[in-house]
């Protein structure tokens, strides 16, 4: 496999602020890669470093094996879908999409043909003559994607592209983007603060915090085996408890993460727990219970008989499901 983007010890400082701090990263060609983290965690800065809008303070970036430092954005085989879409207000949709081809001197007919093809891919054929201001948010988002892919980049960068859309549209666009990535077969690097989005779309996720990558792995890895307390809490929710409490008695000094759905209600051979509160969530119900002075969140199916507040129930989990966390935050 070719490596499309590689970071080695990349730092980006603004005066005293370490926006990106010694990041190592290697993204394979054709991968759908998500950069996940809270705002200010450095994920967007990393994206801008790849696009070329920012230069690293130190460290080294390679894009398809070529040094990226000092290469202007317009010479990189990389295109970006901007968070605010950044459509050119003075051009119609077709000219927006054909902009990159126009700059490369592609004749008008061919350019329009290619642009129309890109619009088709995002299911906006026939919208070419409109102005960006005449489109809805979702349509603008599609135009932004079409404009970026019309350039046939080897890497597509997406900066929180779904952030401004409402929930229904967001879910639909997630599927479409995933599909588009499969069709094009190019690398997608996707920045988001929404862990659900990252889990459902990405082949691999890098979780960012305070300018550093905390963990890189497949969505399954990240969710099931969070390495730190931060990841355990940021990706999904977690019960952070002492290792010996969870049943791993040989690792007394460490904490573990126990996912709420790993805790089951059982009829016998369980630990006694008191139900403190319940929240009904449709298909499932979240319970907050207390066992030996430790509060735990657990999820049970709503169609089983629901325990009442204050009721004593028996709970149990497989100690294998408890995942040891490193001592770092």
């Amino acid at each position, binding site marked *: 496999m070719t490596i499309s983007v590689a970071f080695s010890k990349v730092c980006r400082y603004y005066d005293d602020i370490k926006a990106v701090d010694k990041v190592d990263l290697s993204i394979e060609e054709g991968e759908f890669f998500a950069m996940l983290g809270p705002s200010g965690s450095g994920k967007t800065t990393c994206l801008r470093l790849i696009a070329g809008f920012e230069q690293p303070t130190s460290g080294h970036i390679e894009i398809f094996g070529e040094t990226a430092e*000092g290469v*202007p954005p*317009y*010479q990189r*085989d990389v295109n970006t879908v901007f968070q605010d879409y950044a459509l050119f207000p003075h051009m119609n949709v077709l000219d927006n999409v054909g902009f990159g*081809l126009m700059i*490369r*001197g*592609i004749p008008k007919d061919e350019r329009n043909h290619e642009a129309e093809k890109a619009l088709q891919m995002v299911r906006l054929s026939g919208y070419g003559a409109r102005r960006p201001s005449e489109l809805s948010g979702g349509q603008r988002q599609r135009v932004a994607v079409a404009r970026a892919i019309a*350039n*046939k*980049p*080897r890497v597509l960068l997406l900066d929180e592209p779904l952030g401004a859309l409402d929930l229904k549209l967001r879910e639909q666009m997630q599927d479409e983007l995933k599909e588009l990535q499969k*069709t*094009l*077969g*190019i690398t997608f690097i996707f920045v988001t603060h929404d862990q659900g989005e990252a889990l459902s779309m990405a082949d691999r996720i890098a979780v960012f915090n305070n300018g550093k990558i905390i963990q890189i792995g497949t969505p399954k890895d990240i969710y099931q085996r969070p390495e730190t307390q931060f990841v355990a809490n940021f990706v999904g929710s977690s019960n952070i408890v002492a290792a010996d409490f969870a049943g791993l008695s040989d690792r007394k000094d460490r904490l573990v993460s126990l996912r709420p759905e790993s805790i089951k209600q059982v009829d016998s051979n369980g630990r006694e727990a008191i139900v403190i509160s319940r929240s009904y969530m449709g298909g499932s119900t979240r319970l907050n219970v207390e066992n030996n002075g430790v509060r735990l969140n657990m999820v049970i199916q709503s169609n089983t008989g629901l325990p009442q507040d204050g009721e004593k129930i028996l709970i149990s989990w497989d100690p294998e499901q408890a995942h040891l966390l490193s001592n770092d935050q």
Partner: protein
Amino acid sequence: MISSAIYAPQRSGSVSVFSDYCWRNPRMFLFLLLLPPVLWLGIIYLGSLFSLLLQSFYSIDEFTGLIKHEFTLKTYRELLHPANLDIVVRTVSMAIIVTIAAAIIAFPIAYYAARYARGKWKVFFYLGVMLPLWSSYLVKIYAWKLILAKEGILNWFLAKLHLTWLLESVLSIPIIGGNSLSVSYIGTCLVFLYVWLPFMILPLQAALERVPVKLLEASSDLGSKSQQTFRHVLLPLAMPGLIAGSIFTFSLTLGDYIIPQIIGSSRLFIGQAVYSHQGIAGNIPLAAAFSIVPIIIMAFYLWMAKRQGAFDVL
């Protein structure tokens, strides 16, 4: 579908080499952007101001009438001559009167335009101020020459109303009066007021646009009479606009030499003094020293205005 050679970015030509250079050296690019305007304004404008300052420290030889290129304060001493001080006092008083009058007349227009005018009335008010503002300065003065002429419309109008006696009694007041309006200070003041009024309205309107209507309602809810609302709420909030406008009216009046030359008495204003000293007398040092006066007054005025936050509405 992976990129083909056709779509590879172009990387040739001196233009793109220069573009790459600018991209890699943003400071240098900024420097190159600023270089022409800063050189232009720096050399031509600041250079000229500096040479003006320099010349004010030269003096003129009384016998030969030539400029002596030696540093001296003699010219500034000459400036303190009572006749010259008179000119300064006269000009500054005129500027103050014009500014106050402009503020009074501008306020209702600006307030109405900001608070009540909507839609096409807003445009009407806007253009209603803009067109006189940008109309030719000399034509505006000319219009007043027509109005104030003895045989002109104003006298005709007053005669029709049998008010000629009123004009005559006003003109008989010493200092501000004169043979006719067009050779009196009243006439000069009227023309100054007319020509600079739009410069007061625009910033005042901008400041008043920012006063939230809620604030005025709150004040009247709290039982203020409209006079009190005006005095304690509206006026303080309009102050930055008034000051910004007054910078224009004040500065423009201080530096004008054409209006008092065409409409007014033969007594000089600073602008006329500068013009005549450099022109007929060839006394550039004294003209330079004279023109330092409005610079100092304006510098002080701008400093005060900045402290009041007047620049936010410019």
